[in-house]
């Protein structure tokens, strides 16, 4: 993002490389969001607005997932908002790291997501952090939206989504979002407790609400179990650690 002379050329910048590969990988699965959204009953523009304006993969999948399961708009909005809470934490971290001023702060807020924060916090040099954040943030924004549109258009032409296993794709997508966070015994225990709470709640409350029950269970567990901080339960800044181990442990 800066034009001043830098010691490392862009193509040789480690943060730039990580950001580009993450942008392509993440952008591509915009196809599955677009297709699933249309399959869940959203129209093309509703799907695009979610990718353009909500722009946070987990929250977007949550929104369409709740509606697909027969949940109400309020429940979908609530699940999406709760799942997006971690972005507020990321905002604090990026603000502390890059100190964007003026209008840049408002732009950087929009592209503050798992991947851009992970790319920045995986670097120790401030210039690299800045490059990583902006390249991943803007790169993913552009590709995610292009591929959402492709998925939405393709999904429309596909007919019965179940025949193509699109409901199975949603299950797989959520598990894949959860998976990198299951490091250590406590995350597994929390995931199991919340899965159980969800199954127990399903028959008794309206669709969408079991997810909120699980959120409360997770919040209560977190509130009372915070003594063991060394188990990596803070919002996972680097769920893609195996792709870029550079500079880990010295940032934050």
């Amino acid at each position, binding site marked *: 993002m800066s034009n001043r002379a830098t010691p490392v050329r862009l193509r040789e910048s480690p943060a730039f490389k990580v950001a580009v590969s993450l942008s392509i990988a993440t952008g591509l699965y915009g196809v599955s969001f677009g297709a699933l959204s249309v399959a869940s009953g959203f129209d093309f523009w509703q799907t695009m607005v979610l990718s353009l304006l909500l722009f946070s993969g987990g929250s977007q999948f949550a929104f369409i997932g709740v509606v697909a399961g027969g949940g109400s708009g309020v429940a979908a909005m609530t699940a999406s908002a709760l799942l997006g809470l971690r972005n507020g934490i990321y905002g604090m971290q990026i603000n502390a790291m890059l100190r964007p001023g003026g209008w840049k702060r408002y732009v950087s807020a929009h592209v503050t997501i798992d991947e851009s924060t992970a790319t920045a916090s995986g670097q120790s040099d401030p210039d690299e952090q800045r490059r990583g954040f902006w390249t991943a943030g803007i790169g993913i924004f552009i590709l995610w939206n292009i591929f959402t549109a492709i998925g939405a258009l393709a999904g429309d032409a596909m007919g019965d989504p179940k025949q193509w296993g699109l409901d*199975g794709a949603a299950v797989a997508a959520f598990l894949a979002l959860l998976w990198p966070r299951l490091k250590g015994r406590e995350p597994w225990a929390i995931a199991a407790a919340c899965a159980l709470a969800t199954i127990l709640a399903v028959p008794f409350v309206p669709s969408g609400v079991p997810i909120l029950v699980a959120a409360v269970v997770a919040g209560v567990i*977190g509130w009372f179990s915070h003594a063991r901080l060394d188990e990596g339960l803070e919002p996972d800044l680097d769920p893609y650690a195996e792709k870029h181990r550079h500079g880990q442990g010295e940032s934050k």
Partner: protein
Amino acid sequence: MSLWLWILIACVLAYLTKLVGYFVPAKLLESPRIMHVAGTMTIGLLASLTVVNAVASGQGIVLDARIGALAAAAVALWLRAPFLVVVISGAAAAALLRLLGWG
């Protein structure tokens, strides 16, 4: 039309949540409990969303082709497959099981 309304509210809330982080005093970051709760809630929500999409059907619990998708995705993740491959495995498993007449 009301779905549009909730979509737009969700968008505004998502942006405000991100923005609030930029205006919060850095001290809050030092509160281990807040950080911890944010982390556990993310895990809990994702676990719940996985289960709901795998077995819930309205207010009932149904075991159908989606369980196959869950298993296929878990295997793909175990083998460290990239996100897109995991999603495709899930879809393929569900589609295949339906083709074979189950779920």
